[in-house]
C-alpha cells in the first residue's frame, strides 16, 4: 500500500500529469494568458465549491445554492433596473440570501430535517418563488453599464482577471475562518461527531444556522461575479446540473461526504483539475459528448484509485457515509 496517497494527492497528481501532458502536446496551453483564463473559467465553480465545502465539512450539504445564486442576483438586477440605487439593490439581495440561509439552517438545526432534503426543497421553493414574484423573465440583463460595480466580474487586477481574484479572496477568507476562528473549528467538530460536539458544549444548532447563512452569502458573491462577467443572469441555472459539478469539485478534491475532513485546499485542487481538463479539451476541439465522456472517466478513475488505495474501514466508517 502506498502510504499517504489519499484522494487529494491522487487528484493533484492527476492534475499535474494532465498539466504536463497538455503543456507538451498542446501549443499555447502553457501560455500565462491561457493559464489565467483556465482558472477564470472555473472560478465561479470554485467559489460555489468553497460554499459547498463549508456545508459538507459540517456534515451537511446545500443543494439550494444554485437557486439562491441566480434568483437573488436576478431580483437585484430587476430592482436596480427599476431605478433603485446599486447599494440598496445589493442590500435587498443580501437580506434575501440571509433569509434563505436562516430558513435552511432552522429547518436543519431545529426542525431536524436532513440537510439534503431541507435544501433540496428550499431550492425548489426559492426558484419557484423567484420565478413567480422576483424575476418573472428568466434572463435579466444589466441595463445601466456605468458603475464600477458592473465590472467586478470582467476587469483585471495587475493582469489577473477579477473572477480569479474574487475566488482567491473567498477561498482565503474561508480558509482563515475554518482554521483560526472558533466557529470554523466548531464546524469541523460538528462534522466529525455532532453528538460529541453538542456534549462538549458547542452551540450546534445556532452554528448550523450560521453555516447556511455563510453559504448563501457565498452563493450571492458567485452570482455577482457571474452576472458582471456575462452582463446577464439566467434563473434557469437552477434547473441545470451545475449543483452536481459543485459537489463533484468538493468531493473530488477529497472532502468526504461524511464530514469533519478536508479543507479549502481540497476545493482548489478539485477545481483546478476540472479547469485543466476543460481547457485542454477545448483546445483539442473535442466535441461536447466526447468531453463529457472523458471528464467522467477521469473523475471515476480518481475515485476508483482512492478506493483501492484507501479501502473503507468498517470500524471507523460512520453512519451517514455515502
Amino acid at each position, binding site marked *: 500500500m502506498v502510504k499517504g496517497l489519499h484522494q487529494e494527492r491522487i487528484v493533484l497528481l492527476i492534475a499535474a500529469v494532465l498539466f504536463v501532458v497538455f503543456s507538451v502536446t498542446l501549443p499555447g496551453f502553457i501560455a500565462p494568458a491561457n493559464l489565467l483564463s483556465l482558472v477564470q*473559467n472555473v472560478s465561479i465553480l470554485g467559489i460555489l465549491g468553497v460554499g459547498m465545502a463549508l456545508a459538507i465539512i459540517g456534515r451537511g450539504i446545500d443543494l439550494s445554492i444554485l437557486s439562491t445564486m441566480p434568483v437573488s442576483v436576478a431580483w437585484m438586477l430587476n430592482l436596480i433596473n427599476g431605478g433603485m440605487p446599486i447599494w440598496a439593490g445589493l442590500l435587498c439581495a443580501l437580506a434575501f440570501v440571509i433569509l434563505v440561509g436562516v430558513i435552511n439552517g432552522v429547518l436543519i438545526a431545529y426542525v431536524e430535517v436532513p440537510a439534503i432534503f431541507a435544501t433540496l426543497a428550499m431550492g425548489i421553493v426559492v426558484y419557484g418563488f423567484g420565478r413567480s414574484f422576483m424575476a418573472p423573465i428568466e434572463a435579466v440583463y444589466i441595463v445601466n453599464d456605468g458603475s464600477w460595480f458592473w465590472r467586478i466580474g470582467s476587469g483585471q487586477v495587475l493582469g489577473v482577471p477579477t473572477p480569479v481574484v474574487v475566488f482567491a479572496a473567498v477561498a482565503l477568507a474561508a480558509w482563515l475562518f475554518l482554521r483560526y476562528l472558533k466557529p470554523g473549528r466548531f464546524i469541523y467538530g460538528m462534522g466529525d461527531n455532532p453528538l460529541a460536539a453538542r456534549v462538549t458544549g458547542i452551540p450546534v444548532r445556532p452554528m448550523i444556522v450560521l453555516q447556511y447563512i455563510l453559504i448563501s452569502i457565498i452563493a450571492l458573491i458567485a452570482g455577482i461575479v457571474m452576472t458582471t462577467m456575462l452582463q446577464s443572469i439566467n434563473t*434557469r441555472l437552477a434547473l441545470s446540473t451545475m449543483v452536481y459539478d459543485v459537489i463533484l469539485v468538493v468531493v473530488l478534491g477529497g472532502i468526504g461526504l461524511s464530514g469533519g475532513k478536508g479543507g479549502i485546499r481540497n476545493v482548489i485542487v478539485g477545481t483546478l483539475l476540472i479547469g485543466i481538463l476543460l481547457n485542454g479539451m477545448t483546445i483539442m476541439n473535442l466535441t461536447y459528448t466526447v468531453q463529457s465522456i472523458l471528464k467522467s472517466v477521469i473523475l471515476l478513475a480518481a475515485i476508483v484509485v482512492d478506493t483501492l488505495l484507501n479501502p473503507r474501514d468498517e470500524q471507523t466508517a460512520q453512519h451517514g457515509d455515502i
Partner: protein
Amino acid sequence: MNGMKLMRALLATATLAAATTVAISEPYDDGQSKTYYESFKGKKVAFVPLSMGFDLTEGWNAGLQNQAKALGYTVEVRDPNWNVEAAVQAANGFVSEKPDVLVLHPLDQQAYNRIVPKAMAEGINVVQINLKSVTNGDAYVGADWYDLGVKQAELIVKACGKDSGKNGKVAIVTGQAATPTIVIGNQAFDDVFAQHPEIQIVAKQSADFDPAKAQAITSTILKQNPDLCGILGVWDGQDGGTAAAIREANMQDTVYFVSSGGGSKAAACDNIANDLFDAYVSYDVPGQARDLNAAVKILLQTKPKPGSAPFALYTPLKILTKENMTPSSCWTLEEQKAFGG
C-alpha cells in the same frame, strides 16, 4: 300626480335611450365583418410553449392575449418549464379539453409526433410556432432555420472570406447538439462553407445554450487563436457569454461576431450598439406574434378539417448591423404587451 308624470317621462326617456344604444351598438357590417367577429366569439385557443419566462414565448403570448381580448376568445397557457414530459402531458390535457386551436412550441422534433395527429383526429387545428415536429400540423409559423444558418454563414464569409482580405479563420460556438435548430443550422453552415474553402474552422464547440460555458469556451479559443477573424453564434441567450469573452479579450474590433435570435432589445440591439455583435439575424418576435395571430384567425374563420389544408408562414429574417439599426429594430416586452399582436 306630478311625480307620476315625471316618472313616466323619465321611464320613456330611459327606454328610448336604451333602444338608441342598442341601435348604435349594432356594428356596421361591410358584408364580411359581422361573420368575422362572430367566428371568434367564445372560441378556445390553447398554447403549450417550451417554457414561459423568456423573450420569445413571452412576446408571442403577449400578442396572442392582446388579440384574444380584442376579439372575444380565450388563450389558455400551460407552462411546462423546459420539461419535455411535462409539455407532452400539458398538450395531452389540452387535447382532451378540445380547444378550437392548439398552439405548440416543441422542444424537440420528435416529442409531439403522436400528439399532433391525435389532436387533429379529435378535430383540433394545430399550429406549431418557431420549432417544428417532424409531423406537420395545420400551420407552421416561425423561422426557416436552414435559411437562418445560411444567412449567418454568408455574413461570416463576407467578413472573413476571399474578398475581405482577412485570413478566413472562424470559430463556431454552437448550442445543445441534438436540438433541431442546431442540427439544421449546422447543416447550413457546412453547406455554405463547402463553397468557400478559404474559410477555415479553427474550433467548433458546443456551449449547451449556457452563456457561462460560451464565455469559458470563447476565452480559450481567443487565447489559442489571437488572429481569429470571426465567430458564429447560434442564439443571443447564449451568445451574450461569447460577447463577454470577446470584450474581455479586447477584441471587439478584430473579431467579427454574428449572432441570431428573437430581436429583443436587451439581448440584441444593446449588444449591437456596444459593438459586441457585428451582425445579428433576427426572427423578429413581434412579427412572428402577428403571423401567429393571423394563423389563428384564419383557422378560426375557415375551420378547415384538421390537416386538410396545411400552410406555413416562414418568418422574414432581418439582418441587423450597427449601420442599419434603428430605434424600432428591436422590441421590449413592455411594448409588446401594450401593442403586440
